[in-house]
């Protein structure tokens, strides 16, 4: 600093090829992508030839899609230095409210109107729980871990309470379209390659997920709001001193996560046309683990949308592979846990190494 100008090294606008490759390989998204490729090759070699092949891939995408709706806002929440355990409870509450509303109001109004009402009620539940989480953490300075654990139980309890032990199955038929409609089906008839690659059979949730991914990426990387999320998670006080409205960032983050969890519940209710209060299980751990594997730091300030997407792919690839390889499904959680452990250990190792340099 402040050395004479001839000694100042030029800022490396044009790094050489080797350092560029090293920088590329040090990025979590690139590392994870390589892991996914190697994993796929190994699983295929291990006997599941169809793994992520043309038949499996579209099905795989539609299985990942509902979780994808939640992992994006969850990653953004983590980047902003917060996290939310309540998503499973919120999603189940939304499922049950959908079933309950249908059972009460079916036949009393126009079907389309009823579907809109049902979706609005489901989303409102997510909005309310998200707002409670956000206000509790920002205004009342409550601890996010305990707050969202409490609201998880309250939402889950409300779901079982409203369901009252009954399973509801009397849905408006066209409600299925929320999860089952295939928007590219007609296009597939005109362009046979879409049909061959089974792209024309992709159902709506894949497109919701694509929109959420794109919006998440756009907001996080290309808007002030996104940079303020990073700033808030990187150093909350420092960000506030520089005029970032950190409480607003946190509140909006919790609301977005609540809404996404509710949407996930609506998609599941539509897919199953059934509304038991235990429809979703382990959603919170799946999406938090996926975001962390994708490079999001629990301490905030780090992570990316692409990383979260790849992390969630990995979680679901492990699930699919366990089944396709005929391994006992009971070991699935062991493997998921081991992968998470490895990712966190790897993080700690790279941080330690960077600090001692």
């Amino acid at each position, binding site marked *: *600093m*402040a*050395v*004479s*100008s001839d*000694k*100042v*090294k030029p*800022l*490396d606008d044009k790094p050489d090829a080797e350092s560029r490759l090293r920088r590329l390989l040090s990025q979590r998204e690139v590392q994870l992508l390589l892991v996914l490729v190697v994993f796929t090759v190994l699983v295929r070699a291990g006997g599941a030839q169809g793994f992520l092949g043309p038949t499996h891939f579209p099905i795989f995408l539609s299985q990942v899609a509902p979780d994808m709706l939640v992992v994006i806002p969850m990653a953004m929440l983590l980047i902003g230095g917060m996290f939310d355990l309540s998503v499973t409870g919120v999603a189940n509450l939304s499922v049950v409210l959908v079933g309950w509303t249908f059972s009460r109001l079916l036949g009393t109004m126009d079907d389309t109107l009823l579907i809109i009402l049902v979706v609005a009620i489901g989303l409102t539940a997510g909005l309310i729980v998200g707002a409670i989480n956000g206000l509790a953490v920002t205004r009342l300075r409550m601890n996010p871990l305990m707050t969202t654990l409490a609201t998880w139980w309250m939402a889950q309890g409300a779901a079982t309470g409203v369901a009252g032990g009954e399973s509801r199955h009397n849905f408006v038929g066209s409600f299925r379209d929320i999860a089952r409609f295939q928007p590219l089906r007609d296009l597939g008839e005109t362009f046979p390659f879409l049909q061959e690659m089974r792209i024309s059979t992709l159902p709506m949730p894949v497109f919701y997920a694509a929109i959420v991914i794109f919006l998440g990426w756009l907001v996080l*990387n*290309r*808007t*002030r709001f*996104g*940079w*303020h999320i*990073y*700033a808030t*998670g*990187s*150093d909350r*006080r*420092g*960000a506030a*001193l*520089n*005029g*970032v409205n950190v409480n607003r960032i946190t509140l909006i983050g919790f609301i977005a996560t609540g809404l996404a969890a509710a949407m996930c519940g609506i998609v599941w209710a539509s897919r199953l046309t059934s509304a038991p209060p235990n429809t979703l299980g382990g959603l919170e751990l799946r999406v938090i683990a996926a975001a962390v594997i994708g490079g999001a*730091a629990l301490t*905030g*300030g*780090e992570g990316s949308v692409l990383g979260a997407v790849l992390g969630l792919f990995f979680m679901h690839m492990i699930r699919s592979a366990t089944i396709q390889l005929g391994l006992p499904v009971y070991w699935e959680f062991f493997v998921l846990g081991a992968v998470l452990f490895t990712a966190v250990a790897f993080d700690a190792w790279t941080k330690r190494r*960077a600090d001692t340099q």
Partner: protein
Amino acid sequence: MEAPQLQTEREGDAGVAPEPLLIARNITKSFGHVQALSNAYIDVRAGEIVALVGDNGAGKSTLIKVLSGAHRHDAGEILVRGQSVSINNPNDAFDLGIATVYQDLALLPSRDVVANLYVGRELTNNGILDRRKMTEEANRVVRQLRTNLPSVHTPVRFLSGGQRQAVAIARVVHFGAEILLLDEPTAALGVKEAHEMLTLIEHLKEQDKGIIVVSHNLAHVFRICDRITVLRHGQTVGTLIKEETDSTEVVRMITGADLL
């Protein structure tokens, strides 16, 4: 609050010291029972470095935070360019051209130099961040301060203490701050880096900034400052002109030895 007396005939007063950029007087601030400031006074002119010294807990950081909008004072008056102002938050201070580099810098460790320079004031184009412009400007600012950084895309957590200080200062200078408040800028630095930091501060003085520096290190104080304001138990006990004093007198004033 009574209207301040504006000095309107500055041009005619050749040879008279210019009107201070900033005057803070009778500043009072308490945290519950703790009276952190009870009657603090400080002023600074353009192109001047004023050192703010005092024992631990004397209220130096609190006075800086009052001026930068991080704390609201309970009573007292702040004049900026002769106008009485109220500074309720960091944005008010920013609008008045007052910028602060805190003891702990308030940098974002996981973010790169560009994001740190622009935090809270990101440039946008139709709502979309103008990343190219920000990167270009960051490169320009860093060169202008003759600061040596590996790249403006390096996360701040990989920078040395001195480099971080430089980023924090580059940030405020870039946004047109005329009054700089530096809280212990050399405290966390090694000998060589501290001297580079002092050179940077002198360089800022040449650019006609008004600078208030909090420091414990009297050698550093005497190297760069023009005047020394001494704070004790939240009160300003006096302001000394560097040429008219020495470190023993300053130490006596800091500790209050004369009064014992």
